[in-house]
């Protein structure tokens, strides 16, 4: 399975196709340090006003900040608002 994913990843890079569309890879968008949109997430691991951890399947996105709040959430997307201080992907 891992081999197939790696192959698909290589293929998408060579064909210059967006990985989030082809592989369902997570995509993180930050707007003005106040709003974070995570697409293709795999669920919330931890939730609090100062720290939110989101699973992307093969990695974890950790958001640190103040007054963090989950504004909206559905199967694919997750919108977080608040004062973002740091984002760690890994």
């Amino acid at each position, binding site marked *: 399975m891992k081999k197939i994913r790696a192959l698909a990843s290589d293929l998408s890079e060579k064909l210059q196709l967006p990985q989030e569309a082809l592989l369902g890879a997570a995509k993180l968008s930050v707007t003005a340090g106040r709003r974070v949109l995570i697409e293709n997430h795999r669920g919330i691991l*931890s*939730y*609090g006003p100062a720290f939110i951890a989101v699973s992307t399947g093969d990695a974890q996105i950790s958001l640190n900040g103040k007054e963090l709040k989950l504004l909206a959430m559905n199967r694919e997307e997750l919108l977080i608002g608040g004062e973002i201080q740091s984002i760690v992907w890994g």
Partner: protein
Amino acid sequence: MKLREMLYGVSRVEICGTLPESLLNACAKQALNLWDLETVDAFTLRASLAHKQLNLLRELAVKCQCQVTVLRRSGGSDSLRMLRRRMWLLFGAVLTAALLLASSLFIWEIQVQGYQKLSEGRILRALADCGVERGSFWPSLEPDQIRSRMLLELPELAWMTVRVSGCRATVLVSERVEKPELYQEDRAAEILAKKTGIIVSLAVRNGRALVSPGDSVLAGERLVTGRMDSLSHPPRYVRADADVLADTWYEWTAVCPHAQIYKRGPGSLHHRYALKLGKTRINLYGNGKKTLDGYDKIVHEYPLGIRGLFALPLSLIEERLQRYEPGETTEDFAEEIGPRLERRLLESIDGQLLSSKLSLVQGNDRIYVTLRGQCRENIALLRELEEEQAAS
């Protein structure tokens, strides 16, 4: 509250559990939308969701070992439930809606556009005769019939149309343009004297003059004939055309009183109110038969509704009663009357005023102002000859 939330209904819930995040993930998988998430502590979250998804959230909460408590419900069926407890409010709302719906089937406002010479009152009266007035049931109106009847009632109209939108009728009229008098060159005519006077000059362009400068003529006397006699041929009839300048004299008398009564004030101001429901007036004051001598009455009507959009059959009438005291003045009105007489004389003649003289005669309680004026004006009056006249 947002309109969407008010319509569909929103529940504010508190989620308690060792891992409330697991419930969030389960909700996301089941396409259960949560918003306004708020962390109370490490084990407690608060969120909003639609009413209809509350049962699904409870099911998921059981699987994720969480507890769901509803904190508040608003909008949707809850609003209806609230109305059920307040039956009179519901009844009032339904009744108002029914009345609004019923009243929109009647005309409560009539706007007339496009009139110039005709008065709005005359058009409205004619419309009322055709069945279009305040309170008319507009679905029963037939615009074609109204148009036909209106054109018969008011011959000055060229065409008209009635447009009904809601409870407002807009009547658009177009007045008939008078056909100009056509100049018929081949029609025989003669020139008569319009007024009595002494001829000063004649400029005859067609026809034969019967008078000469210095002659005195009476009103109606023939000045220029259209019959052209010939020694060798039978008489020929032409269309006489001439300018006839003559001196004319006028004597106009106006009467004015020695003293005039005027309103001294303004005095105290009173307000009276009334309601007009359809055609029925309900006075909101007592003693309605009280005479209003010594008062100026100014009436304002405020129809209920949105201006230009719809009107209700209810209007508030405000009457302002301004008290005044009658006073008497003996100012010299005669001096004002002289120039007014001269102005009116000039307006009535087709020429100029050569000289004028004013005289005042004092009566018992009146003053007689007499204007004697000499004018120079064109007294030519064209009269077409009938075929029989021309033949004779």
